[in-house]
Every structure is written in C-alpha cells, then in structure tokens.
C-alpha cells in the first residue's frame, strides 16, 4: 500500500506528462484529482495498518528498496499529500499558462510522489534518488509554467534553481556515499546506531558534506538567493509546492542524516549552522522590511522561518528536533496559505508590488482580507496559530543547547527573538499596505492591462476551498500542537537518546 501510495502519483504523473497532451483540460483535471485522492487514500490506509515495504534492490552494494512510516516522517507525509491534493484542486480554477494542463498536473503529481518517496524512504540511497526525482518536475513548473510576463526571469530562476539544488545534491550524494561506505549499511534505521560509532573525524566530514548539501534546499543563509527568484516566477501551485514540500525535504534530510546518524560530527559543526540560522532569521526579516515585490517578500520570510527550524536542529537537543518538526509543518501550511492569497492576487492583478497603491482587501474583499490577516498573524508567530510553537521552542532549544563555545547559542536565541519582532514589523507592513490600504480612498483594483472593468479581488472557485482547508490547518495546529507532537514524540526520543 505504501509503495502504491508513492508509485501511483509518480507513474500517473509521468503518463500525464508524456501522453497527456491530447487530454482535454477537464479530463486531465479529473484524472489528476482522482490520482491524488487515490494516493491520499492509500497513504491513510498504509498509516492505519502500519504498512511498510522492504525488498532487496541492488544487492551487490546492499541497497534495499525500503519504505516505511515513523513518527518523524508521518506528519510530513500527511502535509505532502494534503498540499499535493490542494494544488491539484487549485488548478481547477487556476491553471497556469505555458503548456498543456496535463503537463502541469503531471509535474505536480510527480513532485508530490517524489516527495512522498523521500519522506517514506528508509534507505539513504533511496532517499537520495527520491530527493532528486522531485527536482525535475519542479524545474519544469518554474521554467515552463512560471510568470508569463517575463521570459528572462523565468529562465534565470529555473537556471538558478537547478544550479543550486544540483550542487547541493552532489555534496549530499558524496556525503551519503562516504557515510554508507564507512558505516557499512545504508539503512536509515541501522545508521542511527552504526553512524554514531564512527570516529569523530569521519563523522565531522560526513556531517559537513551532508549539512552543506541539504542547507541549499532548506535554504540556509547565504545559500538562499535561489529561493526568491524561484518563488517570484513560479506559478501559485509551484510556489506552494516549493515552500510547503521542497524546503521541508531539506530539513527532514537534516534530521534523518546528520542529526540522527552522525551526532558527534554534527555537534561539532552545529554552532556554525546555528549562527548562520540566526543570521538568516534577522537577514530575511530585514529584507522583508523594504522588499517591494510581494512574492519575493514571502520568499524572504521563508528564509527567516526556515532559519528558526535550522536553529532548532542546530541545538542538537530533543526539544530542538521537536521544534523543527512542528516548525516544518507550520511553515508548510502558513506559507502555502500566503502564496495562494498573493499568487491569486498576482494572477488577477498582474503584479502585487508594494511601491504602487494597492486596493485594500479589507474593503474590497473582506473574506480574502481575513485570510490574509490570519496568515500574516501566523507568519509573525502569534500564539494560537501554527508557527508560534516552532519558533518559541526553537528559541528555547537554542538557549538550553549544550553545544557551542560559551554563550554563542544563547546569543543566537536572543537574535532569533529579535527576528520575531522584525517578523511583526514586516507582517504588519504588508497588512498596512494590502489589508487596510494606504490611501484614504482605497485604490480600485486594476487588471494587468490597466483596465478597471470586471477585475475580481475576492477569491474565486476552488481557491476558496483550498484557503478554507489551510486556514483550518493553521488554527488547528496552533491550538493543538499535540496533533503533531504526540505523533513525533516517541521516535524523536529514540533517535535523540540512543
């Protein structure tokens, strides 16, 4: 079942990309929805029955095609499935131009399936292959289906995305190979025990390679510059997949590989990572204070939020891993929500730039305005909404971390707390410009070509359903973090207290 849950979207996606051009838009949408639902159903069944899959694959080097679900991966599998489903649903009313709808949906399905495989993989090499599988469809989403107004930007964004992530992947591959050859196993479960016994030098080298490779994907400052470019050009669905799924693969990889497998080596480089994370938090927040393009702004806020997740991991504590896991999920839903709102507006208005007068959503589209202010409140870490738990616990984890020279990690914790003020400042900056409006007479929405007739501001069609689900998720995780933590607690403890 688990294998099918992963394979169905990938195979169906491949078929849609390869043979789907003839399909009508309607048929492609229905087919994709069916596949996404089937995958979700299979995954739910696999979770319910505790299904796993394990078969010898490349026996010569002892690699097994091994899939399974544990507490650390379960929340991310759910997130990926739900986000994949939402992106397919969103396409019903918002299919980006640039190619056949079937190609777009196929790419979405492959990316979702690949991410599912990444999170379900129980073998380091399988993990890597699945990790790479996601790259190509996402590149396709950015390059082909990106912002139709700017050919050069699309090309540049796609190029940078590939350049960065492939470089990261190669470093990671080398790291994985070094780890596997030193430890003598590629099973993630066995690596937890086997990796920890490696000599410190090897552990450190492996940790450096793995962290450097995965840091690109997270992204950790200063390797973040591909993200704003990719987000700005990607279509709404692509941005959602990037933020809610792709970035999570980076932090998940950090938990699975360096933190779990080579803890001592990771501990040695963790202070560096913590400092970079703290810089990222403040850096992202500062850029958001002056950035004028809405999607770029959210991308930089992602850099800041993922900084919290990285900081939590760099603390090397159990609380830190817990904080990182919930922070991952929270950032997934919050950034998805913001990208659907802003992306939708960008499609309707042509651009959402803060250096021009904008229509006040509170006046013209109260419902969408409510969703926006809720998303912004979540982004600034308001308690009772999803992001708070990850951020607060990240600060706590950094403060209590035993690592690092002197007070270094405590300074990082304080910087992160200041970063939360910057988050408040930029979130309310957006609220002031886009929600309540800056002018006394709120601007009237205009279309991309400057016409004022029939321009829609309020949400359309399936967008409303998608936003409702995301709003509920943001509130639910905020009020009951138990939803995530009760699932992760046991396995995190196993990994962190070996």
């Amino acid at each position, binding site marked *: 079942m688990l294998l099918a849950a992963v394979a169905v979207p990938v195979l169906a996606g491949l078929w849609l990309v390869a043979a789907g051009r003839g399909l009508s838009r309607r048929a492609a949408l229905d087919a994709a929805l069916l596949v996404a639902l089937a995958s979700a159903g299979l995954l739910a069944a696999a979770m319910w029955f505790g299904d796993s899959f394990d078969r010898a694959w490349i026996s010569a080097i002892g690699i097994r095609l091994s899939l399974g679900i544990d507490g650390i991966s379960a929340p991310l599998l759910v997130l990926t499935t739900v986000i994949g489903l939402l992106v397919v649903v969103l396409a019903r009313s918002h299919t980006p131009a640039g190619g056949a709808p079937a190609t777009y949906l196929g790419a979405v399905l492959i990316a979702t399936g690949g991410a599912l495989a990444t999170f379900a993989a129980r073998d380091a090499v399988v993990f890597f292959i699945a990790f790479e599988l996601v790259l190509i469809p996402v590149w396709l989403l950015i390059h082909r289906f990106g912002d139709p107004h700017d050919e050069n930007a699309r090309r540049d964004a796609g190029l940078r995305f590939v350049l960065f992530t492939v470089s990261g992947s190669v470093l990671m591959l080398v790291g994985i190979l070094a780890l596997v050859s030193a430890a003598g196993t590629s099973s993630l479960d066995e690596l937890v025990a086997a990796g920890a016994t490696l000599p410190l*030098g090897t552990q450190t080298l492996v940790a450096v390679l793995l962290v450097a490779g995965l840091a690109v994907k997270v992204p950790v400052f200063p390797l973040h510059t591909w993200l704003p470019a990719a987000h700005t050009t990607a279509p709404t669905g692509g941005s959602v997949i990037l933020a809610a799924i792709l970035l999570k693969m980076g932090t998940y990889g950090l938990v699975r590989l360096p933190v779990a497998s080579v803890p001592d080596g990771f501990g040695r480089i963790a202070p560096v990572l913590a400092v970079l994370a703290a810089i990222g938090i403040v850096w992202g927040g500062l850029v958001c204070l002056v950035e004028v393009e809405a999607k770029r702004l959210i991308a930089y806020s992602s850099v800041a939020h993922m900084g919290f997740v990285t900081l939590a991991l760099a603390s090397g504590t159990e609380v830190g891993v817990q904080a990182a896991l919930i922070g991952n999920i929270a950032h997934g839903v919050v950034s998805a929500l913001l990208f659907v709102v802003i992306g939708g507006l960008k499609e309707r208005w042509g651009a959402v730039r803060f250096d021009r007068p904008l229509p006040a959503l509170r006046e013209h589209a109260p419902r969408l305005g409510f969703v926006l202010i809720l998303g912004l409140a979540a982004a600034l870490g308001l308690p009772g909404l999803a992001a708070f738990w990850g951020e*607060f616990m990240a600060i706590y984890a950094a403060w209590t971390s035993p690592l690092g020279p002197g007070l270094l990690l405590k300074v990082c914790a304080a910087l992160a707390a200041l970063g939360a003020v910057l988050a408040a400042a930029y979130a309310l900056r957006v609220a002031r410009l886009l929600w309540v409006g800056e002018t006394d007479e709120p601007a009237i929405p205009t279309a991309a070509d400057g016409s004022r007739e029939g321009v829609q501001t309020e949400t359309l069609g399936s967008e409303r359903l998608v936003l409702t689900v995301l709003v509920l998720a943001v509130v639910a995780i905020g009020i009951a973090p138990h939803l995530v933590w009760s699932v992760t607690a046991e396995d995190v403890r196993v990994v962190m207290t070996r």
Partner: protein
Amino acid sequence: MTEESLVLHLPVLATIAIPLVAAVLGLAAARRSIVKDITVIAGFLALVSAGYRLWDSRTPIGSGPVPTDGTIRSVTSGIPALDLGGLLIPFEIAVSTRTALISLVVAAVTLAVLAFATWYLRDDDRLGVFLATVSLFAAAMQLVVHSADLLLTLIGWEVMGFCSYLLIGHWSRTPRARRAALKSFIVTRLADVGFVLGVVVLAAGARSTRYADVIEFWQQRPGTALTVAVTGLVIAVLGKSAQVPFQDWLADAMAGPTPASALIHAATMVAAGTVVLAQLAPLLASAPWAMRLLAVSVAVTMVLGAVLALGQSDLKALLAWSTVSQVAVMLAPLAVFPVITGVESGAAAPTTTAAALFHMYAHALFKALLFLTIGWLSLALHSTLASRLQGSARRLLSRIAVVVGLAALAGLPLVVGGWSKELVIATVAGEAVGLRGYLVLVALLVTVILTAMYATRAALVLLRRGPEVPAEPDDELLSTGELRAARATRSALRIAHQAEVNATPFTPRAVIVLLTLATAFGGVLLLGFERVLGVESHVSGTWLLVTLALALLGGALAWFLSGDGDLALRLGPRQALWDKGFGADRAYLAAVVTPVLALARAVTKVDDRVVDAPVRAAAAASVRWSDKVGSAHTSRPLTAVSMVGAGLVVLVAIGLVLALVAGGSP
C-alpha cells in the same frame, strides 16, 4: 488531576472559554445582527461564571481549598500536558480568590464595553468584527489572569497584543488609526522580546513552565540568570503597560473607538502586567536589579503621565495619559519589595501585591466609567477636544458620573480610587527601603497633587459652561456674516448634541449608572476585598490625611489656575508639545525606526550585490558556455542540462578528493 476536579473548576474554565467561543461564533456571524446577542450574552455568562467562582470560593476544589492568602493553586485546564523531553508544559490554570476577583472585574468591564459598543457603534459596518475582537481580547486577558503556566501567560499576552492592534485600527479608513495600530503593536512586541526570553530562561532552569515549579526552582538560585529573566519580564510589562520608555503608544491608541479604549485602559492590556508580576512576585523579590529598573521607570512614568495629562487639548488624551500615570501607581508597590535572598523565601509579602491588585480593580472601574462617559458625551460632537466638550455634561446622570469618576481618579476618600490609592501609598511607605523606596514614595506624593489638578481641570471643563461663544482661533479672520453663520452652526451642533444625549437608549445609560455605582461604592467592598486578598485591614489615618491634603491642594491649585477657562490654555502654543507627548514619537523614529530601515536597505543591497552576485555570474557564465558549445553542435542541448553536467563534474571531483582524504585519515 482527577476528572472530578475538572468539573469543580469548570466555572474558571468557562470564564476563559465562553468569550473565546463567542469570538469565533461572532466572527462567523459578523455581518448579521445576531452577533450582538451572541457576544453580549456570552459576556454576561462569563460574568456570571466569574461571579459564581468568587462567591463559591470557600468550596474546596479537588484536593484542597481555594487559597485566600495571595498564593495560587494550579489545577489542570483540561489541555493535556506536553512533555517535549527536557521541557514539561503542564498547561495548568490557577485557582485563588484573587484571580477570581480580578477575573470578575475583567468580565464586568468587558460586558459593559460590549453593551455600550452595540449602541456606540450602531452605524458601523464592521460592528460585528469589533464585538468578536473584544470577546477574543477578553478571553486572552482571562487566560492571563487565570494562567499558572508561563506558556499560557505568553499566549494570552501576545493574543491580547494582536487584538489591541485590531481594535485600535478598527477605523482603518483613517490614517491616524492605521498608524496608531501599527505603532502600538510594534512597540509592545519589541518589549515582548523580554517576555519571550524571560520565559525561556525561567523554563530552561526549571525544565517546566508551571509557575510553582519555576518559582520553587529559581528562589533557591538567585543570580545573573534570574536577573536576566526577570528583567526581561519587567521590560515586557513596561511595554504592555505603556511605561517609560515605551509610554508613547498608548496616547496614539486613542485613534481607536472609545469602547476599545475603555477596554484596553481599564481591565485588560495595560493592567495585564500588574497581574503577571503580582503572581510572579517571589521571583521579582529575588531579583533586585529588575526591581530597581521597575522602580525608576514607574517613578518617572507616574509623574510624566500626570504632567502630560494636565496639558492635553483632547480630553480623551488626558484620560490616556492618566492611565499611563495610574498604571505606574499600580506597579509601584511591586517595585519596593524587600529583597529576598536565598532559601529563607516564603510567600513574598501578600499585602504588597494586594495593594497593586486593589488599585488595578479600582482603576478598572473608574477608568471604564470615565471613558464611556466621555464617549457618550462626545458622540454627537464628533470630537473629544476639551474646547468642544466645554460644559457638555448637563444632564444629572452625566454630571454625577463625571464627578464620581474624577473624584475616584483624584483619589478622594470614600470612592473606590481613594481607598486604593491610600493603600498603595501606605504600603510603599511601609515597605520603602533605600533609594528605590523613597524615589517611588516621593513620586507617588507628587503624582497625587498632579492627578488632583488634572482631574479638577477635566471636571471644570465638563461641568462648567464656557463663555457663550467659545473663542475659536480662526474667528478673528471671519467677517461678521460668517461669524454669525459659524455661531449658528455651533449652537445647532450643541442642540443636536443635547438631543442625542437625551435620546440615548436604556442600555448605555444602564451601563453608566452601574459603573457609577461601582465606582462610588466599590471602595466599601474593601472589607470584603481584604478577606478575598487575604490581608489585614490596612487603613492608616496618617496617610489618609496626607493624601487628602495633597489632593485638596492640587484641586485648589487647579481651580485657582483655571480662572474662567481651561487651565491648559495657559500653555498657549506650547500645548502642541504636550499633545505630542514631548516628542517621544520622533525619538522612537530617530532611535529605532530610521536605523533599522537603513540597516534593512543595506542588507538588501548586500544580499543582491554580494551574496547573489557570484551566483548570477556563475549562472550567466554557464549559459554563455553552453550557448557556445550549443552553437558548435547542430542540435542545441538544453542550456540548463549542460550546465548541470559541468557543475556535476566539478563537484564530484571535489567530493572524491574529500572522500579520499576522509578514507585516509582514520
């Protein structure tokens, strides 16, 4: 905790949960008129539930009695505890007679504000959202009051801040409201860094966020870490309570609708810090440096706030600055604890925290009364300027409300404010040790004079008819005909105002009557209050006489200085300085906003030109390279793919070298 105990303290949970549910339902039904019923009825239920809890406080809950001596007992809130490995979050709430009393006051003021707002904002198209936000605000404050867990307190604290952003910015169609909302949130949020770090440090030591665990752990270990943590909490309280140097946001917050101001000033937000510090008093008493900071800040604030209140041209702003000053009075007893060292600890002086909480109770009643009365009087005039409100309190009810409210503000005996202020001063005088104590005491006595002065000023403005034709500055520029027209307009306005006040329906009148009664006789409840607070009667004849004498002196001085008109007009053009809060806003801009924005621009530039430039160059180079290779071939390969190939080769080479080195080293 057994299930039984959960049932027994259900009224406590209900006071938090009912407004929360009302907020959610109200938001869902924001555009239907039923939202009024939902929120007001919920406000009433919360009040009943809080009242029941107080009345029933002799019944033991679960395993033990409800503490009446100022300590708290924590019970489960029904939220399952979280154990994150190295940190326990029990999500417990407190039961004690004190929390029950404060909760009752909060519920009462909330209900008054809700009922008043349904009338005051009856023509507002966003009334539903406003009422729902007020309910959420109340739920957050109740959470802070009842919390026995640092994390729950933090949640309530921050949610309250965001609600205040929404309420202050309610009239977001005006630039003033937009700016004020933003400023209030950013200023308080900046101070809240202290709260977050304080909670982190305290919890990091005790490995738990339960108040009892934290207090027990840290009382044994005073030192730098505790000082840092408690100083952080104090900074956050200074921010939320608008104390120096964060004082300026509260005056701007007047841009919000008057019921919102009443709520923020009276029972929530600015008073929340008093509640939190009173409950964590043992920690405060173990951190002398935090107390010193608090003492200096409140001493400066209470005098500054009173001086500013005296000169405001807007009566609502006068009330705002009086809140700043009065909250400082509230916090004063908390700044003068004798330092507790080491293990001898014990409960930190329940009398001292009782004085703070009593003044909070008194202030909540009379400040709600004053705000709602001003809102009532100003509604038809569309202005709260002193010059416009001159003589506007003409009906008997409004005159009584003004007199009682301002008497309480001035601290005259027999009304509620008098009792509490006397208790505060007597407590501070009793505890005062060293420089810190005397600084606060002197500031308090000066504040008594100043408060009586501006209360008298406000009373004279509201009660005494001004000159028949108020001299407006631009009158001189008008021709006779225009002047006649202007006068006619003004008198028409006045008549309309009178009609409006006469036509006020039952609900707002009832609210004002009840608040007036509570303010007038709330002080008599002192005896009952003392049982609730668990302290002995503390009325001291000497200090009563001293405060009364000082207050009368201030009143007489104000009367004398006023002459026929408004005393603040004596300031002449300098009044602008008062209205701007002595330029604190510009100081904020120069000290924080401008540098941060400059830094942000610099960072953005660096991000583009330093961090990103090599990447762009690499991408461009690879494109050029692949184009060249591509032109050599007849079929052009995808640029990106070839570039990937190139990168791959280089990186694999680096990786192999590294791997070889690694293989060789161990």
